[in-house]
């Protein structure tokens, strides 16, 4: 007799005392078929809780017997409660557990059926059907016999219960009378686990879009062999997330493809809502074929016309079996470690790696919350409760782009609705996609269009108001505390451009973590270069820092695309680093019109196949935005300083003629007056008169995004080249000078360059790792560090900052907080733009922007 055991779950042994349960288990342990730790027995637990395994009340006076019996009951109760807890924990951990007790009463068995169900593991029953004589014989041989009466009683119970066992809801039940001819078949690995091996290409919902699917396979590098099978030269395999059929034009062809490839061990397919329905239909059950399932029936009818009844029946049988046996989900193993999960509609963390009806149901349909007025299920967001590090790859719910939320990736891009068919390559984590040839669905409620329609809905303030976390790809979970959220919401409600177009707030930037080692400098490139080298960054760029005001430019191809993307008929938007409109309406319009025309004249949008470009830039002159500050602070302070110091210098000059005592005061004030003049010279350096837009300069230094891609994977040299391209297209755009640092020679050259330009009063340079996003030992490295010139710093640290007694104290500055904020804001910026480009919900883009605005309300020394 063969007994097939599940990978995990409960093996419930049933039988009277002496029926051979423990002996059977003992033999399995000896034969190394099971581990001793996989067995729990009530006898052991009685000993563990009470040091007693058996109490004999036979032939005792009634009062003694009653009390001994009571004692036995109490011990049993405690023993079983401990034992059940242990079983439950093992089930939770997806382990196999043999429960060795008599389990003669239905109530006892029901408890374990419940435990198995609650933990989504199967339970099998192994009943020991031994005749009464043998039981009694064995009892006689025992050290502590249970006694004839008890054995007879147990045997009667077992006889009575036997016929119910089959119907109690076990995955399987086995009845054995002897133990000699029993073969135990045991799965040692979880059938849901799949080794990544040479790589797996996970495919989203195909829905019969066979042509796009084949195109995708070819793009992925699969080649058709002589047996008509698509094979990858590197041995990669295909894994479908289900919903292979229905809605689309070639359901049968597609499912046949998978049937053949799964049989040939070249692919895998997961169970899904449409697949399950078709399977039940093929099984002859009563189902209504709708939502595109009716097309599958049509295809079968057509198949029958072409190939006859026999072939059709055969095919139907094959497909039915195939669909019924599709696993609810797969767990991908990398070097034996489960790192990713593939499921159709969703999964809960506690379901991962487990098999049960409930698990299957959840994986097929996701978390649903009743139906809406048109009878469609309302989908609940299960992704928010995902906590583990496993990446969950899923489909089912079409979105225009693969969307990464909370360590889950949705790769159903609605090919059948005219979207795209996506593949997610694991473990590379890259996407490959094919555009649909057409919208095959003819569904009035096209989910891609619905998504688009609701995309710009106002964000739910409840998600932010009490503080919130943004899960960023670059820095994990970033927490934004409530006290900083409130001023940010105020800002967005009163002062910024509309949130639909506020897609990015540039991160703050730290100066060098270490002050210059030189006596007469506060900042110097040397320390920054050394810092980056110590962070494993070998190549850097040094970009000349323009002194103006930070500006973000979102420029659209035309007003229609803007209406689509941000819900406003405009050619674009230009805003400051705090999200406020940069220019007055008229000037903005004039600049945007000019830039738009220049870009169009240079075929920019068609050349790069984009609807918009998002630029991070410096807008000059400084007085354009900062005139008030310059006049009320800088000019005012310099006038007072010069008046004060010049007057004093004159007085001291007169006095010094007769009074030797004041000669050092005179020298002091001569140099102080000089400092005041430097101060006055420096702040004017960044100002010029603006009369109309002709004097305005814009230096874009990051091309953050086009409508289909972001550019965080491009090195800064690429961004600088783009910058040059822009400068050639329109005279408002200006170039940014830059140099690459890759060895000591180029390092020296940069330092020399910095010294020259800053001696001239220029602000300084920004040093960045060559790559936009750099990591060191897994940690994000500062994306940019500024090195400001000696002269420039007069307007930041005060005109006398270079005096030794001042400089010494100023060098004690701490950039720790600034650096932390810089990293968080950088990660939020990257995240928000990615989400915007992915056309994600406004709520998801806005949380990144709001996060950065909130962090900027956290006070930091403004001189850093």
């Amino acid at each position: 007799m063969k007994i097939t055991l599940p990978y995990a779950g409960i093996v419930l042994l049933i039988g009277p005392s002496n029926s051979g349960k423990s002996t059977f288990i003992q033999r399995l342990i000896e034969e190394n078929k099971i581990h001793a730790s996989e067995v729990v027995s009530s006898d052991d637990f009685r000993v563990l809780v009470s040091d007693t395994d058996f109490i004999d009340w036979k032939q005792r006076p009634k009062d003694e017997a009653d009390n001994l019996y009571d004692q036995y009951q109490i011990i049993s109760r405690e023993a079983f409660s401990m034992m059940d807890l242990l079983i439950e924990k093992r089930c939770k951990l997806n382990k196999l557990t043999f429960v060795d007790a008599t389990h003669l009463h239905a109530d006892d068995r029901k408890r374990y059926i419940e435990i198995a169900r609650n933990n989504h593991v199967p339970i099998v029953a192994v009943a020991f059907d031994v005749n009464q004589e043998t039981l009694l014989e064995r009892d006689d041989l025992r050290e502590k016999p249970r006694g004839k009466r008890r054995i007879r009683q147990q045997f009667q119970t077992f006889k009575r219960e036997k016929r119910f066992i089959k119907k109690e809801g076990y995955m399987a039940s086995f009845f054995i009378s002897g133990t000699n001819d029993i073969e135990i078949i045991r799965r040692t690995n979880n059938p849901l686990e799949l080794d990544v091996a040479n790589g797996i290409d996970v495919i989203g919902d195909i829905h019969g879009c066979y042509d796009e699917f084949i195109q995708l396979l070819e793009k992925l590098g699969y080649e058709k062999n002589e047996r008509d099978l698509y094979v990858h030269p590197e041995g990669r395999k295909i894994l479908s997330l289900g919903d292979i059929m229905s809605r689309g034009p070639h359901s049968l062809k597609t499912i046949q493809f998978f049937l053949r490839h799964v049989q040939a061990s070249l692919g895998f397919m997961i169970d899904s809502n449409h697949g399950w329905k078709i399977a039940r239909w093929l099984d002859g059950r009563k189902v209504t074929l709708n939502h595109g399932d009716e097309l599958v029936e049509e295809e079968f009818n057509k198949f029958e016309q072409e190939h006859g009844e026999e072939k059709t029946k055969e095919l139907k049988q094959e497909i039915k079996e195939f669909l019924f046996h599709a696993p609810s989900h797969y767990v991908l193993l990398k070097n034996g470690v489960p790192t990713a999960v593939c499921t159709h509609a969703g999964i809960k963390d506690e379901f991962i790696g487990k098999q049960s009806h409930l698990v299957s149901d959840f994986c097929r349909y996701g978390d649903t919350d009743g139906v809406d007025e048109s009878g469609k299920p309302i989908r609940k967001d299960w992704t928010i409760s995902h906590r583990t590090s496993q990446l969950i790859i899923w489909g089912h719910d079409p979105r225009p782009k693969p969307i990464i939320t909370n360590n889950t990736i949705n790769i159903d891009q609605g090919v059948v609705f005219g979207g795209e068919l996506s593949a997610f390559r694991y473990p590379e984590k890259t996407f490959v996609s094919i555009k649909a040839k057409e919208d095959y669905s003819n569904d009035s409620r096209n989910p891609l269009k619905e998504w688009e329609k609701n995309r710009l809905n106002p964000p739910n303030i409840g998600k932010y108001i009490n503080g919130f976390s943004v899960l960023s790809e670059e820095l994990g979970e970033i927490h934004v505390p409530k006290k900083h959220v409130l001023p940010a919401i105020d800002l967005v409600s009163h002062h910024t451009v509309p949130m639909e177009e506020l897609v990015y707030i540039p991160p703050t930037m730290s100066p060098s973590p270490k002050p210059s080692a030189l006596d007469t400098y506060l900042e110097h490139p040397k320390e920054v270069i050394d810092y980056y080298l110590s962070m494993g960054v070998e190549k850097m760029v040094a970009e000349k820092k323009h002194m103006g005001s930070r500006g973000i430019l979102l420029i659209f191809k035309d007003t229609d695309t803007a209406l689509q993307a941000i819900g406003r008929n405009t050619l674009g938007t230009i805003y400051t680093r705090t999200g406020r409109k940069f220019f007055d309406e008229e000037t903005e319009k004039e600049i945007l019109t000019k830039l738009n025309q220049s870009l169009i004249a240079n075929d920019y949008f068609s050349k790069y196949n984009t609807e918009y470009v998002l630029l991070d830039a410096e807008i000059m002159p400084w007085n354009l935005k900062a005139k008030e500050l310059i006049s009320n602070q800088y000019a005012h302070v310099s006038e007072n300083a010069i008046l004060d110091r010049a007057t004093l210098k004159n007085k001291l000059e007169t006095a010094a003629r007769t009074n030797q005592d004041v000669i050092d005061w005179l020298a002091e004030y001569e140099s102080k007056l000089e400092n005041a003049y430097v101060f006055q010279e420096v702040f004017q350096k960044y100002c010029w008169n603006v009369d109309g837009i002709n004097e305005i300069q814009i230096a874009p230094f990051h091309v953050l995004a086009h409508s289909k891609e972001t550019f965080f994977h491009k090195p800064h040299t690429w961004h600088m080249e783009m910058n040059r391209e822009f400068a050639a297209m329109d005279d408002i755009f200006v170039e940014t000078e830059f140099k690459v640092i890759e060895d000591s020679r180029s390092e020296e050259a940069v330092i020399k360059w910095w010294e020259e330009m800053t001696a001239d009063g220029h602000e300084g340079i920004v040093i960045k790792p060559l790559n936009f996003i750099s990591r060191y030992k897994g940690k994000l490295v500062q994306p940019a560090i500024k090195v400001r010139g000696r002269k420039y710093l007069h307007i930041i640290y005060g005109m006398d900052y270079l005096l030794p007694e001042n400089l010494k104290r100023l060098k004690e500055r701490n950039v720790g907080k600034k650096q932390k904020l810089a990293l968080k804001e950088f990660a939020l910026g990257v995240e928000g733009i990615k989400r915007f480009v992915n056309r994600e919900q406004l709520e998801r883009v806005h949380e990144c922007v709001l996060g950065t605005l909130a962090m900027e309300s956290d006070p930091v020394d403004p001189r850093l």
Partner: protein
Amino acid sequence: MQLTIQATGEHVDVLSYLLAKNPNNRYERTNNGHLIRMFYNRFTSKEVEVTFFVTPDPIALSRDHSERYDITSYINDREFVVSSIFCSFLRSALGTALNGKPKEEYIPWVEHQFTFQFSFGPIASDLTDKQIENIFQPLGYDVEINYGQAEYQVDLRKKSTARWITLNGTTTLQAGLRQLYVLIPVLDNYKHYYIDEKEVEKIERFGKDWLNNHPKREFILRRALRFKELYRSLEIEGELKPVPNKTENRIRLNELRYEKIINYVNKCKYKESIVDLGSGEGKLAVRLGFVKGVQEILAVEPSEGETLKAMDRFEKIKEKDNFVQPTPVMSSLFYYDERLKNKDIIILCEVIEHIDEHRLPKVMKTILVDYQPKSIIITTPNKEYNQIYELGEVYRHPDHRFEWTRNEFQDWCVEQNPGTYDLVFDGIGEEHPTYGCPTQLCLFSRKEDY
């Protein structure tokens, strides 16, 4: 920051005793890193010139005074201009002269009048030259005011904001210094200024001989004590004084607007829960709290500052009878807020005109479709009435993004209505036969079958 005292005439060399500073030595003391210094330029029996100045420690200064994390805390005029800081150093260095307590044999000279020139600066002041003259002329000085240089490559400013003051007059050293001691802080602009009790006392003492008869006495006191609690109470009294006509009209219009809204609320069949969207300081919300039948008022406002004011207001009257205290809610029209769903009345009182017109439809959709109140009351200025105000093309408030005529407003309301509401239009304030009322109102009432 400096003061040069120049004196000419007989016996001026006595001044070194009155000042208690040896003409042969330079004087230097330190105080928290700031250097208090003095030197003689000239010292003869007929001419004396002495300069007193402070070389502050800029870093200590910015550390002490940076209340806000703002670059203006670090780059500011405090290290240069004469101010109360300067005066306290002046007092520490020239106490003898200020108190008129030189060595006994020189006491008679304390009362002696010399021909002085006091030259000090720079000053950073919002006072006009005329106002400055009006302060010093009654004390018997000729006033000369000179400006710093303000020449820039760019059009930054026409005139420098650095000024230098030279006073010529005949007075005693003590009186001259005491006047400067009191008046320099009066000139100074500084906003984050702190005077402790002792300073106030000093002002009283140093001003007692001349301030009472000064024609600008009240003005001087106001400015000198502007940061004192004492003065704050003065200001509040000032608020009660009759206000100019124009403002009065505005206030009246505000009242009429609230009255009208309350009237409409009273007429509404359902009024248990009311949302005041954009409630500001909570003036309307407070009035709603007294409306019979109202059980809940949400005062919705995104600004923390305004919300704090509103909370203050609610707190003050919460004990009153039949008053339902409004609940402040931090929220905004640009978000979706579940807390505002299914209320009886939502009020937008003078709110929509502060929002860019193109953003309004979305805001209205959230209110009308998502929140679905039984009634909505919207008020906004009637642009036509601006003729009466003679505003020309200017809006009534600099933050207004638009102002509408009655037709524009009515068309807009009709356009926003998804068909589920009945609309009633009304005016608020005195009606003009051609231009209508200064404020217009629309009541949206949800149709019964929706």
